[in-house]
């Protein structure tokens, strides 16, 4: 599904990522873990076109997508969420998800402003679609609430609903459990499994080890900008290098 080859990212004199390569299989939930500063978020920003890598390539289903901007990637059915949720704060919950359907609609500026019949019916379709995604994530009762007023946990769900509205084949989530309480985290785990069952490949950066070990099919471990290990949750838990990286190896 997604192949990374020799990804290297240098910021000024600092090498944030060095020669990172791995493959994400279709239909899997893959976790990318590592101590703080390992380069996880940088890696996400490269895959999703926010940064352009210093070297290396990213292939999505065989197509080289290196250096494509995010608005192009979404047309290839790739979407992401953010560590510090990036909602459209001034808009309602429903409108947020409706923006997620931007690429599923085509009315231009003039057609919209002149309320052409096709743009009106399209608008209706967008609204109905958005409400469906709110139901999937269980926040349809908040549809008319201004997004900025949402509690953090609901904001996360909204961000996921908005990402699903893109109808992605692959979704990248940057620390989806950060800031959630234990109940919300359990519900999130269920939701992520449901997303996988919809046939969407899931990649997540996460610090909550319990969550990662519970839901991930495969795990990639980064440390200090390099790939340290890769395998099933069980293999990772038993990997000496990983334990050393997390707990220190001065024993």
């Amino acid at each position, binding site marked *: 599904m997604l192949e990374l080859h020799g990804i290297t990212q240098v910021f000024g004199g600092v090498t944030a990522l060095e020669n990172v390569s791995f493959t994400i299989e279709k239909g899997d939930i893959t976790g990318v873990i590592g101590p703080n500063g390992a380069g996880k978020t940088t890696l996400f920003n490269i895959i*999703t076109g*926010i940064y352009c890598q210093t070297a290396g390539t990213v292939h999505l289903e065989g197509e080289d997508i290196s250096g494509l*901007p*995010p*608005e192009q990637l*979404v*047309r290839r059915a790739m*979407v*992401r969420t*953010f560590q510090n949720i*990036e*909602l*459209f*704060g*001034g*808009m309602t919950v429903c*409108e947020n998800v*409706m*923006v*997620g*359907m*931007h*690429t599923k*609609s085509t*009315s*231009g*500026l003039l057609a*919209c*402003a*002149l*309320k052409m019949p096709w*743009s009106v019916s*399209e*608008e209706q379709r*967008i609204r109905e679609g958005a409400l469906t995604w709110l139901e999937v994530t269980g926040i349809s009762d908040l549809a008319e609430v201004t997004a900025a007023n949402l509690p953090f946990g609901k904001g996360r769900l909204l961000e996921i609903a*908005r990402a699903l509205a*893109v109808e992605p084949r692959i979704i990248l989530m940057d620390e989806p459990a950060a800031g959630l309480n234990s109940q919300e985290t359990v519900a999130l785990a269920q939701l992520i499994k449901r997303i996988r069952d919809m046939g969407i490949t899931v990649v997540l950066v996460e610090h909550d080890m319990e969550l990662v070990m519970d839901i991930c099919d495969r795990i990639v471990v980064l440390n200090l900008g390099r790939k340290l290990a890769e395998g099933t949750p069980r293999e990772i838990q038993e990997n000496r290098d990983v334990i050393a990286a997390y707990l220190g190896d001065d024993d």
Partner: protein
Amino acid sequence: MLSRERLGFLCFALLIALGPLVFKGGYLMNVLVYVGINTMLAIALNLLLGYAGQISLGHAGFFGMGAYLSGILTATYGWNPWLAMPFAAAVVGCLAGLIGFPVLKLKGHYLAMATLGLGIIIYIVFNETVQLTGGPSGFSGIPNLSIASLTFDSDVKSYYLVWSFALAVMLFSLNLASSRVGRALRAVHDSEVAARVMGVNARLLKVQIFALSAVICSLAGSLYAHTVTFVSPASFGFNFSIELLTMVVIGGLGSIYGSFLGAALLTLLPEFLRGANDYDIIIYGSLLMVMVMFMPGGVVRCIADLYRKLAKPKHEGGHA
């Protein structure tokens, strides 16, 4: 079936249409013509600033270009005003699009500076191309607009002419604001990176709305030129760009009706303060300061909040 938004707009249009019956011509009628022109300009700037979140301190320049192009094409070259107006708008729109591509890459203060420079350059051109524009002393002899034998030469006729355009621009913008394009604009405003991840081509959209905004300004400029029949650079300077900005902020960012309120307030206020002799500018300034301090969301937001506060106790009263 009429939606609530549609009904609201119809009521507003009706009020505007009844204006001349209430004010019976006279001096105020003339001022209300300017309110119409300024409403168009404030809406244009609001689409850019209130919706897309991109500032411009050069919008008076686009307004002036519309006015001068219409004026020169009709008075000097004998064009039909109805042809000059869309031609001017197209020229200004294309120019704004061309300038917008590099300029809108800038953000915040830098964008403010760049558009400020643009406005000043346009102003200097009006002043210096004396052969074409008449320079600082202005350009006169611009014909009124007319349809068949009806010439828009009186205040009441101008009022209906200008407000037909202003209402059209208003409806156009209201529709736009509530559409997928309007949502994309607000998305770019709130989080450009998230908007891009959702597939919004933020760069192109910003340029499009900048050009649209300039086109509306140009139309307002043409109407101004054909109504007043005289234009001079002083009307299109930096001061006026700031005044437009004030209208938008006072009225309410991201509110089309707010732009009308802001335009009405800032156009009418100086007229009402005329009696205060030299103190008018002090009162005017103080009023603006007070409004910005106590109504940070603009007049529209303030009215909405007040309405909610007044309506709320009734609901709570039942439980108490």
